[in-house]
């Protein structure tokens, strides 16, 4: 009985010891302490994409405003959905690094129901522009004289390096 107990205790002890040994010798465990440089590299890659949406009435007055931001990196999409009573706009903003500039790619799909609630209009759009502050008009832009009966939706998209924005301003 004692021998059996001893053998059992020994095998149990060996099992746990092996577990500790295997964990300590794990080759995937990186112990390089230079995390500071790595964090700096991560922060340098990150961007803050800020979207300010304005709804402007025919007289040029801003009747509604929204401000959102998301952290992303070059080449990674930020999705933006805008929903209204008769409208659904699905947009994707992708910033790309182009030499020293930022190229913003915008894809959008727009569904609009007419006043009679029967006719459905679908529009798709793909465009890109260089610049860290751009304006997007998913429903189009009024004429230069500001005339027209409809409201205008203006989206101001600004892209700044994450490292230049304090933590409280990212809006996440």
């Amino acid at each position, binding site marked *: 009985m004692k021998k059996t107990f001893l053998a059992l205790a020994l095998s149990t*002890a060996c099992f746990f010891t092996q577990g500790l040994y295997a964990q300590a010798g794990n080759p995937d465990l990186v112990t390089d302490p230079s995390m500071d440089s790595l964090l700096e590299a991560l922060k340098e890659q990150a961007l803050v994409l800020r979207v300010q949406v304005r709804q402007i009435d025919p007289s040029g007055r801003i009747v509604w405003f*929204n401000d959102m931001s*998301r952290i992303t*990196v070059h080449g990674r999409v930020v999705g933006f959905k805008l929903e209204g009573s008769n409208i659904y706009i699905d947009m994707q903003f992708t910033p*790309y690094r182009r030499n020293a500039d930022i190229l913003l790619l915008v894809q959008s799909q*727009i569904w609009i129901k007419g006043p009679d609630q029967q006719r459905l209009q679908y529009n798709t759009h793909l465009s890109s522009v260089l610049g860290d502050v751009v304006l*997007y008009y998913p429903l189009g832009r009024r004429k230069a004289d500001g005339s027209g009966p409809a409201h205008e939706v203006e989206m101001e998209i600004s892209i700044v390096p994450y490292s230049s924005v304090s933590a409280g301003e990212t809006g996440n």
Partner: protein
Amino acid sequence: MDNKRILLHDYLDDALPVDIRAQLEHNLQNNPELQSLLELERAKRTALAEAGSTFRQETSLLTDLAKARVLERLGTRARPKHVPFWKSAFTIPVPLLAAMGLVFVGVLALSFALRSPNQNQGGIDLASVNQGTADGLPVVSSPFTFESKGVELTIQLSDLNQLLSILEGGTGSREVRVSLPQNLQLEPVGEPMLINASERR
């Protein structure tokens, strides 16, 4: 599911209002122009995905390294790969195993003998509990500050987690959903337009 429906499901997500979706399905069944438009859109998306994949491959290489280092810095361990019990138990000679087992039993017996009076009475050492989570991981306060080359760096843990999730290719937090005022009927003014802010009127 026919081709038209497959095409539709490629583009529409569950968030689309049901009535608009039904209307679009109906239109799609009878409108070859809309079908070709969606096919064009799919081609665009494929091209864009390919353009973005190169960047994602580069960042994914960095991800594992980043996560392991951050976890190490925060005092936790990277989770080791699963090693089957039977495999790990027989990778070293039996006599060595036996010796290690004896040492382990000895240490166990010694620690049992040297337990503090508080623990012997079945009490809980609150100091040790406060230093760690239920998983045994240390609690790290935020913001997390450390010094590098004479400069003090402060990292908000929420930001750090977010950066890591981005580099890992995590989804969910990138999408922004905004509701416009419900009392206004919008209508197109013209074609969608993207311009540089310097061209603002």
